């Protein structure tokens, strides 16, 4: 009934600005039961643009826009194609980095750089070593293996750098990743078996892997032990490890959390990398390091005295832990919530419980297919909300999403062929920093300044604009405009990337308007006629800029204006 009322309320508005619907446009049974009655949905082409940017970080092609404009039911098939694209794989890595926080440039926690890396740059090493768990997840998702494989797989992805670090075999070009099935006896537990995870989440000596245990609980089960308050019993001598070990078992003020946290941590003591890392840092040895240490399976006996256990349920070794996680209903629910949150920019705790329950059910019923899950998210009513006409509830409805730095980078590259990078003269322990992607780094780049995370100090994204993000957008647009206009100005017509409807130097109004209409479609996802009001406005900008300079300069100004426009940065 509420849905019926919703349709009545908004029907007068949807002709121009959006549409209502009782069922997801892809035909999925994805009712937005928790949405307010006054919600207005995106038009089909707007929905396509949002799906394209959320899943891939790039704008839809004009062909796809026209297909959906002609037949809104075409959206589902197009989304299926997006889910098979490499850009979706990149998004999967971005999504999981928000949880695992692997992409950091915080030097004290990075692998020591030694002579082994003489032929590499810091950018290359970071882009390889710390991406290993993310690449494994990407591989699992893109090959549509059950998502549970992320904690049960018996292989990882290795390139030349990872092979050098951990002593894995690798053949072929150094920058090509290949699957490697572990042969050192380590249990098969997907990312839980990737050693770099434990290096990133290194455990302080007396912490006994509790931080790692909480990472796993938080990341895969959405259960964060750290959200609890603690009251320290000061009758305990915290300087005595034995006393502490007893207290976390027997003292009620400690055991509440530790009775489940510590047994989880007991699984994670099989990658003891403190000593080799210290030796590397002091120049006493070189890579490779690491390897599975089966003796670590009993290390709990001398540390926390808690046998490995998964929330009170016995599970053997790391592979048992992985399977227990995969079998826990919280795993599917947490995955559904994280996908929904990431793809809608709704905070994890605010995602509709009813929606998550529907997504969880679909996810499980489809053999834990992450592609099916992502598809369901972007075809849901909750995803395609445009705005709420009720001021009372509009604050809670996220009707516009801001590009993340990773998306801005991919969008500009897709539109113009331009990658915003710069060489750095810096070096770390004699290893050159290399050429940094200015939207994907923190030492020289602007990842955090555009609202992204650095995976250590800044772990929450900013989904709105501020002074620095505005400046970053302008700088990126200015660099891209310079590149593409100069490129297309001299390229043969067939080789032009963006100026397909008019040559850069033309001043013919018909041609300029046609080119502007093309740019509106590519940059904004708006299919507009060359004589439309939208094109009029951009044409006025072109002519005003050209009056003071040249057509080439005017196009650069037009591109900067469009790439920094609200319609470009938000979707």
């Amino acid at each position: 009934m509420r849905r019926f009322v919703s349709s009545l309320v908004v029907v007068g508005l949807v002709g121009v600005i959006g549409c209502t619907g009782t069922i997801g446009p892809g035909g999925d049974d994805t009712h937005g039961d928790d949405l307010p009655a006054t919600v207005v949905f995106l038009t089909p082409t707007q929905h396509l643009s949002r799906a394209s940017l959320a899943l891939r970080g790039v704008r839809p092609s004009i062909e796809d826009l026209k297909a959906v404009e002609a037949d809104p039911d075409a959206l589902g098939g197009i989304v299926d194609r997006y889910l098979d694209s490499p850009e979706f794989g990149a998004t999967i890595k971005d999504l999981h980095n928000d949880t695992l926080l692997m992409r950091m440039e915080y030097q004290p926690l990075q692998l020591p750089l030694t002579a082994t890396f003489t032929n590499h740059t810091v950018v290359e090493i970071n882009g390889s070593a710390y991406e290993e768990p993310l690449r494994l997840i990407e591989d699992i998702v893109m090959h549509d293996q059950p998502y549970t494989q992320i904690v049960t797989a018996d292989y990882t992805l290795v390139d030349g750098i990872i092979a050098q670090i951990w002593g894995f075999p690798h053949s072929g070009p150094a920058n090509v990743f290949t699957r490697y099935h572990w042969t050192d006896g380590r249990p098969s537990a997907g990312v839980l078996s990737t050693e770099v995870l434990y290096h990133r989440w290194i455990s302080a000596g007396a912490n006994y892997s509790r931080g790692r245990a909480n990472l796993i609980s938080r990341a895969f089960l959405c259960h964060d032990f750290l959200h609890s308050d603690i009251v320290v019993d000061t009758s305990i001598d915290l300087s005595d490890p034995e006393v502490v070990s007893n207290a976390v078992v027997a003292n009620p003020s400690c055991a509440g959390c530790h009775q489940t946290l510590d047994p989880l941590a007991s699984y994670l003591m099989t990658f003891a990398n403190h000593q080799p890392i210290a030796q590397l840092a002091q120049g006493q040895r070189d890579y490779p390091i690491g390897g599975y240490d089966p003796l670590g399976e009993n290390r709990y006996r001398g540390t926390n005295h808690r046998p490995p256990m998964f929330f009170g349920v016995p599970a053997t070794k790391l592979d048992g832990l992985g399977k227990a996680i995969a079998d826990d209903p919280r795993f599917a629910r947490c995955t559904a919530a994280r996908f929904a949150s990431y793809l809608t920019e709704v905070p994890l705790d605010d995602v509709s419980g009813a929606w998550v329950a529907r997504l969880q059910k679909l996810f499980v019923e489809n053999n834990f297919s992450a592609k099916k899950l992502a598809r369901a998210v972007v075809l849901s009513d909750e995803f395609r909300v445009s705005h709420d006409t009720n001021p009372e509830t509009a604050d809670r409805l996220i009707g516009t999403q801001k590009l993340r730095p990773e998306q801005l980078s991919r969008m500009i590259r897709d539109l113009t062929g331009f990658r915003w990078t710069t060489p750095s003269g810096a070096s770390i322990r004699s290893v050159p920093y290399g050429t940094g992607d200015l939207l994907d780094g923190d030492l020289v780049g602007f990842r955090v300044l555009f609202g992204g995370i650095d995976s250590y100090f800044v772990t929450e994204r900013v989904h709105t604009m501020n002074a620095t993000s505005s400046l970053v957008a302008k700088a990126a647009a200015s660099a891209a405009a310079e590149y593409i206009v100069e490129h297309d100005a001299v390229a043969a017509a067939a080789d032009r990337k963006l100026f397909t409807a008019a040559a850069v130097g033309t001043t013919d109004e018909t041609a300029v308007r046609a080119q502007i209409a093309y740019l509106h479609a590519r940059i904004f996802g708006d299919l507009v006629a060359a004589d439309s009001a939208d094109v009029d406005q951009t044409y006025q900008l072109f002519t005003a800029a050209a009056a003071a300079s040249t057509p080439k300069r005017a196009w650069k100004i037009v591109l900067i204006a469009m790439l920094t426009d609200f319609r470009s940065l938000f979707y």
Partner: protein
Amino acid sequence: MNRRQLLTYAGAAGLFGVLAPRLRVARAAPAPANKRRLILVMARGGWDPTFALDPKTQSTMIDVPAGSRQLFGNLPVFTDASRPNVTAYFNAHGARTTIVRGISVASVSHIECVKRMATGTRSETNADMGAIVAHDNGNELPMPYLILGDTAFAGKYAVSAGRVGNTNQIIALLDPAQAYQTDGRAPVVTTDAEDALIAAYADATVERERAVRGANGYNKARLDDFREAIDRGKQLKSVRAGFGSRGRALTIPGQVQLALDALQQGISQCAMISTRFSWDSHEDITEQTGFHEDTFAALTGLMDGLVARPGLMTGSRMIEDTTVIVFSEMGRTPKRNAGGGKDHWPVTSAMVMGAGIRGGRAFGATTDKMEAAAVDFQTGAPSASGRVVTSTHFVAGVLKACGVDPSLHLGPTEVFGAFVA
């Protein structure tokens, strides 16, 4: 017209008067005298208050470093010849400094404690002290909340906050001469006239979007932020000299100078600084001697700068309108562990300096076991009938000291205001 207004009109508004009408209008009214500026200095990792702020006696219950209790006026501090910069700081600025002891954060997790001490709440989506004071007291400035350190929480005031980057690379966005090149090619440098065209184009979009789907709620806020951010970015460019060159923000003295410059030049209302040390001394607590030394040397520089530089009102000094908070998210265990380090402890101490506070004394207390002691919230003295000061109470007190109503941001919480003048 006060100094900030003079600088503002001579700089940003003069160059971008057409582009920044709303910000300029908001700036026209002088701030009340108690609407203070705020500099936050974060010692991330968990410091050991027994090294200076919370003098204790060596016992079977607590391990303390070398040193003894020394009074600076009415302010007791733990000092030692091995920490001369600590002594020098309190000799110079003890009368302007308050120590708040025994703040309970009720957690031993860095992430949890950082957000609790910075925001006074349990959610990282809430704004921290700097973001709140910046928004309420100086939102008309180009970058009200200048984040020079690493961790900060802007919350719903994100549009008012900005980071300079790990190597102060913000300058590459502000100064065309220092802009990054890609493949040897420089980006387009737009003229003021071209910027005006681009801004007008953005304005037209904003108005259209507002009419179509941004009339209220979340969408309206995003549109407002988008447009406001353009103005703020333009204003930042007009004061770019204050940011210096790349690499400036790497050290705490560099951050101190940048913060002082930004506040003095009317760029920012608040600044967040990091000591850049990892105070998480699990393996060797003695390393905190060096951390204290370098930090207190920088704090002396910060306070010297505030005393020397002109304040907002004619004839005043920055120290009269600027409050400084130095804090760490947690403390360290009373006893050393087997390795000679100290582990996490859910009770900490903080320093509050400068404007709006009752300097030269300490408030709050810890027990001999470093537990947070119950105190009287009016006097700040230990009291059997009192309550423990939590991070929320402390943050509320800081907001009050800065002229901000804590209840507007933290809800109906009790304010630990004993240290507020």
